[in-house]
């Protein structure tokens, strides 16, 4: 091995030995450090995974949805408009959608009720998502009562519980026939909740949206890309907000680290004094301190990241989930798809290891400048 490398290795060896000589102190530092990394890493991984889920979910969504707004309030849209929009150049298809939110007073949550045209679904039956089945405690073949807009109960048989593969989208979903949706929400014939518009060339979307608004001033076109952008912004904002909240935790950790690094014990001072008197230079002591810091940082970083990985992707981030996911009552049950990339690790590194390193720079230098003579005499 080349001599400079050998020197680095020897100092690293010494640093490890010196860390293990002060086990109690270093383990407490390592514990707190790991905890800080763990919390921040869980947060960053979780936000990233949620963004990934939203992206995967919306991949299936229509390119554009057109709603009707009456002075800021959403209103059913005339089916005649579907025809008019379909005739516009560039539009490849328009599907009217019939759906609404139904508040269930029994367990206090909203269900998304949607119409499907499926020959297998009889008029007095419905299909429910896993979340609905869990919360209403129903299974295939059971009966459900929903109260229509006029207060009269409507009785349905649960014909099918939707598969759990689609749970993130279908948790709160109830599917029924068109006529039942109209009866439940008092929707007139010839209207729909909104129109799903498919466009052949995605680059024409803004132009087509502009045409629709020009033709129907009360229409509100919403692009898939806008929904996606809004989701990303919301998740980023929530993640960033949590980081700001956690800043106080990072700050107190930095103060803790500073304090630990500044308080040299008499034994440590003597040790540095002896090292210097047997020929170590100040630069070597500084390197020794750097190695000690690097070992602690890397161990804490690795341990914290691994724990966070397990927390987020095996236990679905059970510690923060409610703060970050949303405020619905009916939560889907899901396992997030693991997605960790170098970018998130670098962010995490900057947010945790960097403050620690900066906080220990001056104390390390102070330690390295100890005068051998006074250190050994004290």
């Amino acid at each position: 091995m080349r001599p400079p490398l050998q020197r680095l290795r020897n100092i690293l060896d010494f640093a490890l030995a010196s860390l293990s000589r002060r086990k109690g102190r270093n383990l407490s530092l390592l514990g707190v450090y790991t905890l800080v990394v763990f919390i921040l890493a869980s947060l960053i991984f979780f936000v990233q995974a949620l963004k990934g889920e939203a992206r995967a979910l919306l991949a299936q969504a229509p390119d554009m949805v057109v709603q009707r707004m009456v002075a800021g309030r959403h209103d059913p849209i005339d089916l005649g408009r579907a025809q008019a929009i379909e005739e516009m150049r560039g539009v490849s298809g328009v599907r009217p959608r019939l759906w609404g939110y139904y508040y269930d007073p029994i367990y206090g949550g909203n269900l998304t009720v949607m119409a499907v045209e499926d020959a297998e679904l009889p008029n007095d039956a419905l299909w429910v998502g896993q979340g609905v089945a869990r919360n209403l405690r129903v299974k295939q073949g059971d009966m459900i009562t929903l109260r229509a807009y006029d207060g009269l109960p409507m009785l349905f048989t649960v014909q099918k519980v939707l598969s759990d593969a689609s749970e993130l989208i279908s948790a709160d979903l109830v599917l029924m026939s068109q006529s039942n949706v109209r009866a439940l929400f008092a929707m007139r014939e010839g209207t729909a909740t909104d129109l799903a518009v498919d466009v052949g060339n995605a680059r024409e979307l803004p132009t087509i949206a502009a045409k629709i608004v020009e033709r129907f001033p009360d229409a509100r076109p919403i692009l898939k890309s806008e929904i996606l952008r809004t989701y990303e912004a919301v998740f980023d904002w929530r993640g960033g907000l949590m980081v700001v909240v956690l800043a106080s935790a990072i700050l107190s950790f930095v103060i803790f680290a500073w304090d630990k690094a500044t308080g040299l014990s008499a034994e440590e001072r003597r040790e540095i004094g002896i090292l210097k008197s047997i020929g170590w230079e100040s630069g070597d002591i500084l390197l020794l301190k750097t190695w000690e810091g690097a070992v602690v940082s890397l161990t804490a970083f690795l341990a914290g990241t691994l724990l966070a990985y397990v927390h987020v992707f095996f236990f679905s981030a059970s510690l923060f989930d409610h703060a970050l996911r949303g405020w619905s009552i009916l939560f889907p049950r899901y396992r997030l798809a693991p997605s960790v990339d170098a970018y998130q690790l670098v962010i995490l590194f900057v947010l945790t290891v960097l403050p620690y390193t900066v906080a220990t720079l001056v104390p390390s230098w102070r330690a390295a400048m100890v005068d051998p003579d006074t250190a050994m005499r004290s």
Partner: protein
Amino acid sequence: MIQHPGILALLLASALVGLLLAGAAALGLRILQGWDLRSGSEKQLALERRTYLVSSLVATALGVQMLSLFLFIFTADDLQGQFVGAMCAAGSLAVHAFGYPTLLLKLATSLLAGLWLVLHRTDLQGYDYPLIRAKYGLLLLLAPLALVEAWLQFRYFSGLKADVMTSCCGALFGQGRQGIAAGLAGLPPRVAQPLFWSLLGALTLMGCAWLRWRRGAWLFSLLSLGYFIAALVSLVSFFGLYIYALPTHHCPFCLLHREHGFVGYVLYGALLGGVVAGMGVGAVAPFQNRASLNQALPRMQARWVIASLGLAWLFALIVGLWAWLSPLKL
């Protein structure tokens, strides 16, 4: 401002770099004022001890600075989804007048930081702190630049506003901002291509001449800086097109993506490393007659010349081969 963890990390990094460099510059100023190597006074001893602190402050700051350069590009890339019309970092940086100046200043401070490390390394070779004035002089330039950069970066991020859905109308607010990154085409290839290859040739000749006669270090450094700029311009102007195999995609950032095999890291790494080594050769040239350095310095300079040439050729070989093998013919 967008509350993005990456943005918060960058703001923290810049604040810390600014703090470290400002602290180091203040110490450096005091060292410059009171430095007298012949004196054995307590003050001089204290100053000599402080040089250790300054170097560890600056070395940390510079490491963070390099990291934050890539983190900045990454974050701009990650934010592209939130602006209508932005396809990659090029779009997010153009959203706001402070985007590109921040990037350029980050690049400049990273280069100067690398140069500082070269000076520092040379300084350590001599027993009598031969480069102390040059080193701390550069530091006094570097610290304000880092502070300005932190400020610009803050202005850039605080001015960002995501194009999120509004409750009155969707879809239409993007209309006025079509083709956000259209201006990034750079020089036409028939100018950039000869410029790039002739600079590479000149750099190689000059490097060999220096190795043979030990003269012209300044010229080598200038050529090295020129090659760096020409390489960046050529990357935007035509090499990138071959790599993407798209005649219209003039983007220096998509090279960092997975679909191009992360080739951008190798290319930018080679360019940055090459220009720092190349500029270092000239920067230390005025000190080659110092008694404490005349043994070590020529050896180190020779190593840097070889490194700089090797990295320049590595870049040229990668992009040249890619262009040659690319299905795209311009």
